[in-house]
């Protein structure tokens, strides 16, 4: 089983998984972070309450979150084709991953930002800080450790989703596991992919926790 072809395939799968996960995470944050900020800011006790917008956005996010990822994966195939031109392979997989991850990232960001002490925000307001300054000078930096932990959690969750996309030819380690383990009963190869996935999860989680801890000045 350690013939060069298999090793090469595993290495490629590993890199594809990393590629999908990281690019998807970045894009999902590009969407989820602002949404999370909007959720907190427009909340009733937020710095710019907007109950209507808050409710609509919250509902859309809940709706997306309640769709099981496998179903989402299949439903968005037409969208993926429209954007990427194909629905198979790692690049195409980024589309459902981003759509699936953005809503829960929005909620994670919301939770982190809500932990920021109201008093500190009030203090900033008393100094004449604008809402924009409060977001990027107070809320985001004060929530940094919690945001970093959330990011580690997001990346590992997205990696898990990416493995699932193997069912629709998404590429990466999940694809290999399903092709060899599920369809050809080559359990050894499947095991190796699982071990590799576990290692990636562990590494990201550990890195996230270390950085969060180092960056937290609250002790």
């Amino acid at each position, binding site marked *: 089983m350690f013939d060069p072809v298999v090793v090469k395939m595993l290495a490629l799968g590993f890199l594809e998984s990393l590629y999908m996960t990281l690019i998807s995470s970045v894009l999902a944050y590009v969407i989820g972070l602002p949404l999370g900020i909007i959720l907190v800011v427009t909340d009733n006790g937020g710095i710019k309450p907007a109950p209507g917008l808050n409710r609509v956005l919250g509902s859309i996010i809940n709706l997306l979150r309640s769709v099981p990822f496998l179903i989402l994966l299949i439903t968005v195939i037409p969208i993926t084709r429209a954007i990427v031109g194909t629905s198979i392979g790692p690049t195409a997989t980024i589309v459902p991953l981003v759509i699936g991850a953005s809503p829960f990232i929005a909620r994670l960001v919301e939770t982190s930002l809500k932990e920021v002490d109201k008093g*500190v925000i009030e203090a900033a307001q008393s100094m004449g800080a604008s809402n924009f300054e409060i977001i990027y000078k107070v809320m985001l930096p004060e929530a940094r450790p919690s945001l970093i932990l959330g990011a580690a959690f997001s990346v590992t969750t997205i990696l898990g989703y990416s493995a699932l996309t193997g069912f629709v030819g998404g590429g990466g380690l999940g694809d290999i596991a399903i092709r060899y383990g599920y369809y050809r009963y080559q359990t050894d190869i499947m095991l190796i992919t699982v071990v590799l996935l576990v290692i990636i999860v562990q590494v990201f989680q550990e890195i996230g926790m270390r950085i969060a801890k180092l960056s937290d000045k609250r002790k």
Partner: protein
Amino acid sequence: MRTGTSLIQIRGLSKVFQSSSGDVHVLEDINLDIKQGEIFGIIGMSGAGKSTLVRCLNFLEKPTQGTVFFDNQDLSALSLKELYKIRQSMGMIFQQFNLLMQRNVLRNVCFPLEIAGIKKKEAEERAYELLKLVGLSDKAHAYPSQLSGGQKQRVAIARALANNPKVILCDEATSALDPATTQGVLALLKDINNRLGITIVIITHEMSVVEEVCQRVAIIDNKRIAEVGYVKDIFTKPTTDAARRLVFPEGKRVEHFTGNRCCRIVFDGSSSFEPVIANMVLEFRQTVNIIFADTKNIDGKAFGQIVIQLPEDKLMGEKMMAYLRNRGLTVEEVHDFV
């Protein structure tokens, strides 16, 4: 201290909060003038609306009715941008300090300067200066979590001073601190008022804080200002029930004093700190019952009050009160109420 012209004028201010269970009227028709350079106290029981009132002073809370003039500008007439700008000349400190936990002390003090658009280098120089003023130069690179409560409040004071404010608003600034630390923070505020001439508004529920630093005080009770005046006058001759409740010790029920002839002795700092009651007892060879005592020695002067029960003998009681008055103390007989 240059006092005289009004820095803050509160005019017909009311505040109503809308809640699910209906409107909550918190403040009604508040009118106050806070003068340039004074230390002004606002005192009231918990829930009286003190925090709401102080938050109206910088429009963190918009009054439902009425307005606030700050430095002759009607705050309700300002645009949001102008309001941000004017808030830079109003420092504020809080009970819970409200420092940025992820910024060190230096960068906390730099924060309002950043907001005001001051260049980093200049801001840091100013921050070091301020830390020196509050006696925390050595803590510039510490994080708030590494400081004691008193130190945190000093950082908050330095931060509030950063943009050379005309006023510092203090909302229960010493309520989370122990008595000794409270003294230190109050002394610092007094010093800032003295040296920099900055007007200070102190919100508190503790009469001792007002006694110690304020020149004038407003008593807020049942949504309104019950009494305004010089601390000395209100402390020695409270004219409203609200004032009496605050001046008199908490927990001492009014009934305790009824039936017997009691007298309340006020130490307003004009007499020296001597064992006056003990001396009186020695002089008259007659014991008195001390019902309540809360005095302290500030710079060798006595502050606070003692309530004693006078002897049954009416003449003796009169003599004792005369004796105390001769020592420069304010003495009042308290019968039915308080």
